[in-house]
């Protein structure tokens, strides 16, 4: 298996917030903490686009680089996780993250800013897989249960895809080929500085 990845199809996302709700419910995320959010550009204007954003489990994660207590670690599947027993709630990761993934509960060990909480790709934390201790700190460990992240599995339009990067890329590529557009429109291609962003789709054998 390559690496676990998320991608949100901006052509399909209808801003229903089902992914946000699924995440909060699955992990019993406290009030004020949103591991996942739906971001809409040009809200209310015809042609508005929405994507669901959470931790992108970066290959070269800036949060890991800046953490002064080295509480982050990466699993074999490329999922970026952290140890709440080590986190001191300093917030450096929050400043470093380009996606706004790290969240801080307003009530916790440190009063105003508790220990950091973020999307775990439904992979829990360092505690024993599926244990109560793991659930209380990090939420459910769906990967160890043989499931994929709840947000993607719950997505009504299947805009949010999660899983092995190769599989997710294949599904998304197939969609782009079938509808003859998608990779060039606003979305991850733009966010990651794709050379194709803003240009017509170049797919062999498909008439424009």
């Amino acid at each position: 298996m390559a690496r676990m990845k998320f991608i949100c199809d901006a052509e399909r996302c209808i801003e229903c917030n089902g992914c946000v709700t699924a995440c909060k419910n699955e992990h019993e995320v406290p009030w004020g903490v949103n591991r996942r959010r739906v971001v809409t550009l040009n809200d209310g204007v015809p042609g508005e686009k929405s994507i669901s954003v959470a931790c992108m489990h970066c290959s070269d994660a800036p949060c890991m680089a800046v953490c002064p207590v080295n509480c982050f670690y990466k699993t074999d599947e490329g999922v970026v996780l952290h140890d709440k027993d080590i986190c001191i709630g300093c917030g450096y990761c929050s400043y470093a993250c380009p996606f706004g993934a790290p969240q801080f509960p307003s009530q916790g060990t440190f009063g105003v800013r508790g220990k950091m909480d973020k999307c775990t790709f439904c992979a829990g934390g360092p505690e024993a897989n599926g244990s109560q201790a793991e659930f209380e700190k990090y939420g459910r460990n769906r990967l160890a249960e043989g499931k994929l992240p709840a947000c993607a599995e719950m997505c009504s339009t299947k805009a949010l895809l999660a899983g092995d990067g190769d599989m997710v890329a294949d599904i998304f590529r197939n969609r782009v080929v079938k509808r003859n557009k998608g990779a060039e429109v606003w979305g991850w291609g733009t966010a990651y500085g794709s050379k194709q962003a803003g240009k017509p789709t170049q797919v062999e054998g498909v008439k424009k």
Partner: protein
Amino acid sequence: MMKRMSLIVLSVAALTACGEKAQNLGTKKDATAFSGAENHFVQPGWTAGDKNSWEQHLRARGQYGMNDHSRAP
């Protein structure tokens, strides 16, 4: 006598630091996802501890659950 007593008390107080728990940085070891979970929510159809079985299971689940083109072309 007082000097000796205070010396003993001070020595004992100084040694209490040796009893402090070590505050080691670094993360704990995490179990692999394919080793399974300790609860009743584990999906059937794959073998816990078998990485290949877990990967195949997740791939099939992803294709079935997310690739609607394969279900309704």
